[in-house]
């Protein structure tokens, strides 16, 4: 009796290959679209909002949302929508730069810890703890003490204060990857340590971080806005979400739209970043 070849071929792929089309989630699509809009707003804000974000019209001040001013006008009669769009770049830059500073510092710390031997690991471990002991806003104030207030100080401060968290995660991730079977396989092939680190360890260890970083961007914007509230953040009249939110707070009872729209935008950005971060995370998880 001959066997049905298809039935017994041990090389047949699994019954449900994981590569089946993933169901597209509405949330993810919205998040991606929103992000695209953010990118456009950062690169070419004029496309979405042709008006001048700093042009004042004192007699038009405090207009509630209307067709001509969808998000209303602020205390100087400036169009809130236009300012939000034009503020995207600066706000995201703060978020991205802070996250980059945090991640960069963290990466250096973690690499030294993991590949620098026991002593280095101990030192870095303590360094991370010390950085942890300087909570975000405190270290922000400390940086401001040295650099003086302003967006640069705020960005550096927020960035540095996120570093220890990232460093811990990267370190664990590096350790896991270093101990993994595929790194051992690479070593067994006689590859040089540098090649193994660059081609195998880093890409795998950093993948889950991407997801985290997207979350960090939104958080950084929020923190920077707290500094603006304390009078230590961005400089006028450049529109920046955090600064807009902070300065609008004064008019909360008389002009709700001034706070609501920047607030919504920050939250929406964080949500979109989280959604994208999640799905990247899920992808990198699925792959490991």
């Amino acid at each position, binding site marked *: 009796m001959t066997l049905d070849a298809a039935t017994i071929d041990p090389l047949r792929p699994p019954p449900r290959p994981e590569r089946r089309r993933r169901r597209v989630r509405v949330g993810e699509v919205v998040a991606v679209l929103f992000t695209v809009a953010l990118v456009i707003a950062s690169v070419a804000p004029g496309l979405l909002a042709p008006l001048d974000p700093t042009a004042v019209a004192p007699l038009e001040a405090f207009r509630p949302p209307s067709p001509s001013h969808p998000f209303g006008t602020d205390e100087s009669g400036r169009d809130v929508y236009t300012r939000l769009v034009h503020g995207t770049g600066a706000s995201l830059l703060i978020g991205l730069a802070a996250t980059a500073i945090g991640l960069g510092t963290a990466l250096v710390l973690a690499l030294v810890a993991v590949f620098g031997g026991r002593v280095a690991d101990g030192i870095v471990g303590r360094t991370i703890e010390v950085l942890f002991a300087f909570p975000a*806003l405190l270290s922000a104030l400390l940086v401001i003490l040295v650099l003086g207030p302003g967006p640069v100080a705020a960005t550096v401060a927020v960035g540095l204060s996120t570093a220890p968290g990232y460093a811990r995660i990267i370190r664990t991730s590096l350790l896991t990857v270093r101990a993994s079977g595929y790194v051992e396989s690479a070593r067994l092939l006689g590859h040089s340590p540098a090649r193994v680190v660059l081609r195998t360890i880093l890409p795998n260890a950093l993948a889950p971080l991407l997801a985290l970083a997207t979350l960090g961007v939104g958080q950084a914007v929020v923190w920077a806005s707290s500094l603006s509230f304390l009078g230590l953040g961005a400089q006028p009249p450049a529109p920046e979400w955090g600064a807009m*939110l902070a300065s609008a707070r004064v008019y909360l009872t008389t002009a709700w739209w001034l706070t609501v729209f920047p607030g919504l935008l*920050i939250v929406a950005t964080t949500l979109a970043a989280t959604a994208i971060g999640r799905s990247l995370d899920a992808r990198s998880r699925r792959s490991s």
Partner: protein
Amino acid sequence: MALLTTVHGTRARSVARWAARSALRAAVVLWASATLVFFITRLVPGDPAEAALGGPGSQASEEALAAVRERFGFDQPLIVQYGMAMLALLRLDLGTSYSLRQPVAQILGDTVPGTVILAVLALLLAWVLALALTLAQSRGSRVGAAVGDTVEIVASAVPHFWLGTILIAVFSTGLSWFPPVSTGTPAGLVLPVVTLAIPIAGFLAHVMRGSLDEALRSPFAVSALARGETETGLRSRHALRHAALPALGLSAWAFGYLVGGAVVVETIFARPGLGRSLLQAVTVRDVPVVTGVVLVSALVYVVLTIVTDALTRLVDPRIATEVR
């Protein structure tokens, strides 16, 4: 592993070793923080002697400046100043505030309790809220998860200053339930604590829900259900502890975040506290106060790390009996 035979001896020994290691770690972190702050504050632009006399707004004379330099040792080499600063710290001498003309220790003594009470209550409330949020979500429901996600992210993305204002508008001005500013009574604590707690609750819930989901999906959950365990029992007896572990690990960090948030909350609710002292000190470059506040917050962090570590060891037997 050799665990099977030496469990009892290992446990006691590992507790002792843990305690010793924690103490050493705490000392190192404190010393390093002090050193870091010392050198950072030396980077502050401007003449420290002038700052000591109240900054450029004061009209300090040359003689006064010279006297101050002499007194604080600003004319000594940096390393000598560092040595002096560390010796002073060992004597628990934090120096005198430039702007308030008071010993820093006294200022901290006045303000730390308020902030610690605020932060501790906020942390507790955050835990309660996070646990409630976590437990409320129904298992495996995608809509539920999405709603949970949104609530948590929105909660963790609202700036304190904004939340505080909204809470005041609703619960003080609108409903007159709580006073809008601190009154020294428990009622006056409610809004500040809630303001501080909500963002961190969102964050903790986010972390907890992730690990709760993982716990509920894990094989031991299936075997618990297969024994006839109820959904509630599964959560309370099994999954919750797993969910709490990572959040517990984050609590020391969260406390730091709360102390930072206190800067804003104390300003809004007019509460005396560490945060406001710090903000004030930074605006006038009052280095001794800044140093003091940072050291206190480092100390609090260190203590809390040890506490959460100990709690983690209580909850997670895998760590307590770990052999290295």
